[in-house]
C-alpha cells in the first residue's frame, strides 16, 4: 500500500519491450495448443473480438466507468468523513471502526436485492456497491494520516490559542493528503470492480452484464477481452491516481498503517464499548429496515434472526446447519489467511534481502492486485482443484499483495542509524534482517493483518459460492435462491460477529507484540 512510491519501481526495465513481445507470443502459442480445452483465448482472438465489437465494448465500458466514478466519489467521501468524525470524536473510534468493518463485511447476496428494491430501476445499486467497495480502504489510511502529524505542529497551533478546527485545517488535512492519495489508489480499481459486480443485481448494460453473458456463452475471446479491459482499467486507474498524487508533490506517507488508538483506561471499558457497538449495530440494522419499510420477507430484522436461530421453531436445526457451514468456511479461511500473511511478509523479506528481484516482481504484483477476485477465483480453482488447496489459495492470493506492500514499506522504514550500527559491526544480511528490519516491519504487518480480515472473508465466501459449493458462501447463495432469508441474515450476522472477533484478536495480539518491540507505536 505504499501508493505512489510502489509504482515508481513498477516501470518495466530496459528490455521490457522484448520481454512483453515474447510473453504475448508464448501466450498465443499456449492458447492455440490448448484451444480444445476452452480455457485460454489467444491474444489474436482477443484483439479480433475487441475490434469487431469495439462499439459495444466502448459503450459498456462507459456505462460501468460512470457508475464506478460516482461510487468512487461517494465511497471515498464517506471514508474521509468517517475518519474526520473519529478524529473530532475520539471516543467514538471503536464504535465507528466496528460499524465500518461490519458494513464492509456485508455480502453481495444480501445487499444486492435490498439495493435493487430500494433504488428500483437504474444504476443506483451499481454506484452504491462501488462506494461500498472503497470506503473502508480509504477510511483506514486517512484516519492514520489525520493523526500522523508530530506533536510539535499541534503545539504550534495551540500556542496561538487556536482550536481543533484550525488544527484540522492547517495540520491534519494537509498531513493526511498523501494517505488519501494512497487510499484513492487502492480505491480506484476496487470501485470499478464494485460497479461491475453491482451489475449482477440486474442491469441492462455494462461490462458486468457482458461478463455474465460471455461466461455462459462459452465465448472465450469475449471473456478474455473483458478481463483484459478490466485489468487495463484497474492498472491505469491505479497509475493515474498515483500520477496525480505525484503532481501534487506530496511526500510519501511515513507510516501508512498505524496501531489502533489509545490503550483502554479501565477494565470495564472494553466490554462496555463492545456492548455499545452491538447495541448501535442492532439499532441501525433494524432502524434502516424500518425506515425504508423493507418487507420482512427478505429484510430480516434482528429479532427475526434471534427467533430463527434461538427461540423459534426449528432453531436447533438452523443452528446446526449454519454452524456446520461456518466450521467448513473457517477451516479454509484460517489457513488461507495465515498463508497469505506469511507469503506476503516472507516475500517482502526476500525482496529486501535481494532487492534486484523487486524490479521484476512489483509490476506483476500490482497487476495481480488489480484483477478481480471474481475472475481469479475460478482460475485458481481450475489450477488447484475444487478441494481445500484451491480455496486456501484463493484466500491467500487475495490478501498476500496488500501484506507484501505494507511489509515492504515497513522494512524500508528501518531507521538509518540502526542499519548503520549493524553495518559498523559488519553484520550479515540475515543478522540485520532479524535484528533491525523485522522489528521495524511488525507494525505494518499487523496493520495489514487487520485489513486482511474482511478481505479473507470476501475471498473465502466468493470461492465457496463460485467454485467449491461448500461452507457459508455456498449456503448464502443457496438460501437466497430459495428465499430462505432467515438463514441468509443469520449467516450475515454470524460472519459479522466472526469478523469483529477476529479483528479484536488480531488487535490484542498486536498490542502484546508491539508493546515488546515497538512501544513508540502504541504511545500516541
Amino acid at each position: 500500500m505504499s501508493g505512489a512510491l510502489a509504482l515508481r519501481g513498477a516501470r518495466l526495465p530496459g528490455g521490457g519491450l522484448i520481454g512483453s513481445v515474447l510473453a504475448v507470443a508464448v501466450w498465443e502459442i499456449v492458447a492455440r495448443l490448448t484451444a480444445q480445452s476452452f480455457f485460454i483465448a489467444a491474444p489474436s482472438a482477443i484483439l479480433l473480438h475487441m475490434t469487431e465489437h469495439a462499439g459495444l465494448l466502448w459503450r459498456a465500458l462507459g456505462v460501468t466507468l460512470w457508475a464506478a466514478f460516482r461510487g468512487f466519489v461517494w465511497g471515498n467521501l464517506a471514508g474521509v468523513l468517517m475518519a474526520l468524525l473519529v478524529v473530532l470524536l475520539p471516543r467514538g473510534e471503536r464504535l465507528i471502526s466496528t460499524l465500518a468493518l461490519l458494513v464492509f463485511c456485508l455480502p453481495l447476496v444480501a445487499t444486492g436485492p435490498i439495493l435493487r428494491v430500494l433504488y428500483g430501476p437504474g444504476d443506483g445499486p451499481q454506484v452504491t456497491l462501488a462506494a461500498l467497495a472503497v470506503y473502508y480502504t480509504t477510511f483506514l489510511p486517512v484516519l492514520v494520516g489525520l493523526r500522523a502529524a508530530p506533536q510539535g505542529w499541534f503545539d504550534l497551533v495551540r500556542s496561538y490559542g487556536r482550536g481543533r478546527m484550525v488544527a484540522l485545517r492547517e495540520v491534519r488535512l494537509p498531513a493526511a493528503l498523501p494517505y488519501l492519495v494512497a487510499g484513492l489508489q487502492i480505491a480506484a480499481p476496487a470501485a470499478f470492480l464494485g460497479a461491475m459486480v453491482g451489475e449482477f443485481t440486474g442491469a441492462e448494460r455494462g461490462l458486468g452484464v457482458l461478463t455474465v453473458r460471455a461466461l455462459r456463452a462459452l465465448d472465450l475471446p469475449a471473456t478474455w477481452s473483458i478481463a483484459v479491459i478490466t485489468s487495463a482499467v484497474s492498472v491505469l486507474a491505479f497509475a493515474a491516481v498515483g500520477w496525480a498524487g505525484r503532481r501534487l508533490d506530496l511526500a510519501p506517507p511515513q507510516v501508512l498503517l498505524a496501531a489502533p488508538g489509545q490503550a483502554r483506561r479501565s477494565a470495564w471499558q472494553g466490554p462496555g464499548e463492545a456492548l455499545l457497538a452491538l447495541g448501535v449495530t442492532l439499532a441501525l440494522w433494524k432502524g434502516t429496515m424500518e425506515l425504508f419499510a423493507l418487507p420482512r420477507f427478505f429484510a430480516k430484522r434482528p429479532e427475526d434472526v434471534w427467533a430463527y436461530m434461538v427461540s423459534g421453531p426449528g432453531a436447533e436445526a438452523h443452528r446446526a446447519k449454519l454452524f456446520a457451514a461456518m466450521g467448513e468456511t473457517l477451516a479454509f479461511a484460517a489457513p488461507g489467511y495465515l498463508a497469505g500473511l506469511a507469503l506476503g511478509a516472507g516475500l517482502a523479506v526476500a525482496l529486501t534481502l535481494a532487492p534486484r528481484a523487486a524490479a521484476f516482481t512489483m509490476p506483476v504484483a500490482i497487476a495481480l492486485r488489480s484483477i478481480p477476485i471474481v475472475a481469479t477465483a475460478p482460475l485458481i480453482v481450475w489450477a488447484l482443484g475444487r478441494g481445500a488447496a484451491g480455496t486456501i489459495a484463493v484466500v491467500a492470493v487475495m490478501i498476500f499483495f496488500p501484506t507484501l506492500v505494507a511489509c515492504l514499506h515497513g522494512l524500508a522504514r528501518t531507521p538509518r542509524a540502526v542499519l548503520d550500527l549493524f553495518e559498523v559491526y559488519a553484520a550479515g544480511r540475515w543478522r540485520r534482517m532479524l535484528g533491525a528490519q523485522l522489528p521495524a516491519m511488525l507494525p505494518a504487518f499487523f496493520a495489514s493483518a487487520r485489513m486482511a480480515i474482511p478481505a479473507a472473508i470476501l475471498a473465502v465466501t466468493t470461492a465457496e459460492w463460485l467454485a467449491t459449493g461448500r461452507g457459508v458462501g455456498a449456503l448464502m447463495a443457496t438460501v437466497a435462491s430459495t428465499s430462505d432469508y432467515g438463514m441468509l441474515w443469520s449467516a450475515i450476522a454470524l460472519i459479522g460477529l466472526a469478523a469483529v472477533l477476529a479483528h479484536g484478536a488480531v488487535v490484542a495480539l498486536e498490542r502484546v507484540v508491539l508493546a515488546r518491540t515497538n512501544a513508540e507505536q502504541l504511545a500516541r
Partner: protein
Amino acid sequence: MPDEPRPDIRLTGVSKSFGAPGREVPAVAPLDLRLAGGSMTALVGPSGCGKSTLLRLIAGLERPSSGEIRIGDESPDDLRKRAALSVAFQDAALLPWRTVAGNVALGRSLARRPRDAGAVSELIELVGLSGFEAQRPAELSGGMRQRAAIARAMASAPELLLLDEPFGALDELTRDRLNAELPPLWEAHGATSVLVTHSVAEAVRLSDRILVLTPRPARIAADIAVDLPRPRDAVVLGSEAFRETCGQVSAALREGQAPGRLAAQ
C-alpha cells in the same frame, strides 16, 4: 519599541509531574519566580532537566500540577487566546507542505493578523532568507529552518516570545551567526523572552538573567544576573566580565548536578 512596559511573569508554587496517578514522576519542583517584563531570561540546565517543560508551562501548552502562572493579570491561556505569545520550537516545526513564505505567513494567520505580504517578506529578509521564499522546508539547511521558524514566531509581533532551544541542533558556526544576527530583532521589538538552552555561552550572550536548573525535578540552582552592555559585540564577548559570568554559570551547573541527583532518589 514597546508602547507600554511589558508585564512581569509570575510563577507561584508551580510544579509539574508526569505519569499515571500514584506513579507520578516530578519534572518541575514547586517554583516561585518573577521574570521582569521586557527582559530576556535564559533557562540553563543539563539535558532532560525539565527546562523545556517549564517553558511549555509558561506557554500554556502544559497545565501545572500545582500553583499558578500569571503574566500581568492574565493567564498563559488568556495570552494564547489573544495570540500574544509565540513559540520557536526546538525542531522548528515548519509545516512541510508550506513554503518558507507560507510558514512565516502562517504565524500571522494563526494569530488572526490580516494578510501582509510586505511584512512577511520584510521578516524573511531580516532573518536572511531572501531568495528562499518559495522553497519548502525539506530543501533548507538546519540553520535556515531555524531562521524561518524564528521569523514565523516574530510574525505575530508577540508580547511574549518563548524560544525552546532554537539553535540546539545546529553546528557551532551557524549557531554563532544566528546568535549574532537574531537578537537585535527581538530586542528591537521588546517582547518578554524566555530562552531554553544548554549552551552556557549562548545564555550569557543573549540574556539579561540566567536561571540554572537542577536535573529532574527542575529546581533553581542559581539565579545569575548578566550585567553586560548591549549590543554584545566582539568586544563584549572578549571581555573579562563575559568570561567571568560564563564561569559563574558553569560552576552553578556543576554544583546543581549533585543535589539534584540526591533529590531524585
